[in-house]
């Protein structure tokens, strides 16, 4: 009944949104909806019931395993933070006229739909159902990118739809092929993750490699892997910041989640060598493109978006190494990246409100006297920047360190290449912060800038997420370790 519970709560939220009359009501519904989902996820984890392979409602197409609930927990935490943040942020967008009143209900309905579809995506037991849900996340998030209805936003949304959906069609062909492979081996085809994982050892190499490549194309586009990454910086930069945080912190995880699942299947077959070489190649190119694109970047949100591309590349390489240690830190990195990136986008959103830079425009950010006007957002970017570039004591330091160490055991050359590219990305981020945050306004213009009264609701998620990443960076509980180890075991990586 758990899945039904999620669906009923989502339905209640929809009804509430339809009958609500103002922004405050809509936002409260969205907040409660996300929070209840987060609490159910925590309860499921603490209850020790996971994995639930046979649901009373939704079986056999859905199940709840450790990886699924892990992703749902990350997703619901970020959605809750985004909903809290959205109250003050959306008010600002309405005041400035960037968001039309008529779009408000569409915005919250899309946000609520995205959350339930995300949950279904991560709970899908069947590869085709997962594909359909992942496609729905593209459609709904594209709507959120286009919500400001400027030509630039619509253009970014359409670009996102075309790149992601075109690539996802290749994934669908891969899934069809996988079904046929399973049918040729067992007599009855299946697309169940669990069944495919168990059957995989007897799959023919050539067809399995082809199926993996095709499925990879679609999920790579969803997670912003080179050369399908071009939608990502535009969509992230032009969306409202609450949406950017969700795109980067949750939506990219959908693609990576799909790649992890399909790679776990390939891991049991002789196609592993080709698959891991492919992941290393695309991972390295992704980090490289992201790092070099970050150097000249003058738009904060685009810079943060390119950093997401870089981190997706790191995840691919960690996955390719596929040792139990590497997989453990890949899974940990997913969580660390999501929380850190969401906090960065929230801080960037405050700066955009302060300096009135329209989200849709392509011009450089005009930030000055940042510590005078928005000290919390400035520190949010600095601390978040330190965390995302992989400095101690933040969790990304540990995940990057151990992934790099594991890469070193396989190929010292790849290790040095990765180190070099990660260093460039870190320098680019640091350079941006140094040059932008030390700028002062010209004396005659100083009085023109009016301080944006940042509502507490916009500050709270940043503080909460920074605290969360600090705690996860300094404290590893045995529960945390055994939970991630359980994911490894379920995926047969150990």
């Amino acid at each position, binding site marked *: 009944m758990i899945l039904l519970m999620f669906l009923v709560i989502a339905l209640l939220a929809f009804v509430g949104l339809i009958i609500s009359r103002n922004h405050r009501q809509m936002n409260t519904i969205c907040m409660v909806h996300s929070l209840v989902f987060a609490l159910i996820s925590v309860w499921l984890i603490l209850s020790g019931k996971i994995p639930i392979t046979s649901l009373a409602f939704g079986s056999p197409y859905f199940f709840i395993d450790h990886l699924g609930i892990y992703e749902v927990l990350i997703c619901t935490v970020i959605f809750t933070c985004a909903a809290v943040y959205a109250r003050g942020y959306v008010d600002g967008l309405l005041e400035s006229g960037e968001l039309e009143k008529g779009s408000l209900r569409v915005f919250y309905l899309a946000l609520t739909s995205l959350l339930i579809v995300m949950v279904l995506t991560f709970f899908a037991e069947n590869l085709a159902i997962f594909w359909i849900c992942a496609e729905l996340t593209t459609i709904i998030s594209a709507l959120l990118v286009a919500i400001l209805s400027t030509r630039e936003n*619509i253009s970014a949304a359409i670009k996102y739809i075309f790149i992601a959906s075109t690539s996802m069609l290749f994934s669908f062909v891969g899934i069809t092929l996988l079904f046929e492979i399973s049918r040729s081996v067992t007599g009855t085809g299946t697309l169940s993750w669990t069944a495919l994982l168990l059957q995989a050892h007897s799959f023919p190499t050539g067809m399995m490699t082809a199926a993996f490549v095709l499925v990879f194309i679609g999920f790579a586009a969803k997670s912003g892997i080179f050369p399908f990454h071009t939608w990502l910086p535009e969509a992230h930069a032009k969306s409202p910041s609450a949406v950017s945080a969700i795109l980067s912190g949750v939506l990219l995880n959908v693609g990576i989640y799909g790649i992890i699942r399909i790679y776990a299947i390939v891991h049991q077959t002789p196609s592993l060598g080709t698959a891991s070489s492919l992941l290393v190649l695309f991972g390295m190119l992704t980090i490289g493109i992201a790092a070099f694109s970050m150097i000249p970047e003058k738009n904060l949100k685009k810079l943060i978006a390119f950093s997401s591309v870089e981190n997706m590349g790191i995840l691919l390489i960690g996955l390719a190494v596929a040792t139990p240690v590497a997989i453990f830190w890949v899974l940990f990195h997913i969580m660390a990246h999501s929380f850190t990136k969401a906090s960065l986008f929230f801080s960037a959103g405050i700066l955009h409100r302060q300096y009135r830079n329209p989200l849709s425009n392509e011009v450089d950010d005009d930030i000055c006297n940042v510590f005078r006007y928005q000290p919390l957002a400035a520190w949010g970017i600095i601390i978040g920047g330190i965390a995302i570039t992989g400095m101690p004591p933040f969790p990304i330091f540990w995940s990057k360190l151990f992934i790099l160490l594991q890469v070193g055991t396989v190929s010292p050359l790849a290790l040095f290449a990765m180190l070099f590219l990660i260093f460039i990305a870190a320098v680019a981020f640091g350079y941006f912060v140094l040059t932008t945050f030390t700028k002062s306004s010209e004396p005659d213009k100083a009085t023109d800038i009016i301080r944006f009264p940042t509502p507490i609701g916009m500050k709270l998620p940043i503080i909460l997420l920074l605290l969360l990443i600090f705690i996860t960076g300094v404290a590893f509980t045995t529960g945390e370790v055994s939970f991630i180890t359980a994911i490894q075991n379920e995926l047969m990586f150990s």
Partner: protein
Amino acid sequence: MIDPIIVTDLIRVFLVFIIITAAYIISTRNLSSLVTVYAVQSLALVFIALLLFQIEGSTTLLAIAALTFTTKVLIIPHFIGTIQEKIRIKSDIQFHFLTPIKSLFLSVVLMLVVYITFVEIMDGASAPDDLFFFGAVIGISMMLMGMMIIFSRKRALTKVLGFLSMENGALLFGLFITELPFMIEFLVVIDLIILVLLTTILIVGLDSTIEDYHERLQRFHLWEDDLP
């Protein structure tokens, strides 16, 4: 019952016809004929599904034929046609990177590459029959041709038709390679309809000023302005 040899020959004829429609979609500049050709291409797919039903006898094929007819021959072309009339775009004369002649030449090369790749990887398939192999190769080739339309055309509406043509390729591939459960085929089509709806609505926005866009959305009952 029709003679199986005739059925097989008919399927081959329809496959060739589908390739011709894909080539036409790549090369034509007239938007309304693009929509018509897409509907005709989808109709050819319906006939192929029906002919395959004659060979295999699976009711899923009948259901796929009915679903394809309703959505891809009737609903989607009608919707795109309506949007196209509203935004008053008649032709798409601009191309990125590839002109129609180059695109057609590249299509032939792609088909050869797909054929050679398939010869390599299809050893383990349970459908090694010539016809099924031919259908799968044409399905993937169509997908690649659709992708070329997406990358080489400037108008977003033409890109949507390229995407739809790609999707027809994926369906064709599925018909010849294996038989997915109908529920999945059904959900994929629903997903496709939502995608096409959203994309075309957004395209209206690309072709309008913001005020005009809101006005048009209100006219299509896709917008509300009732909040206090």
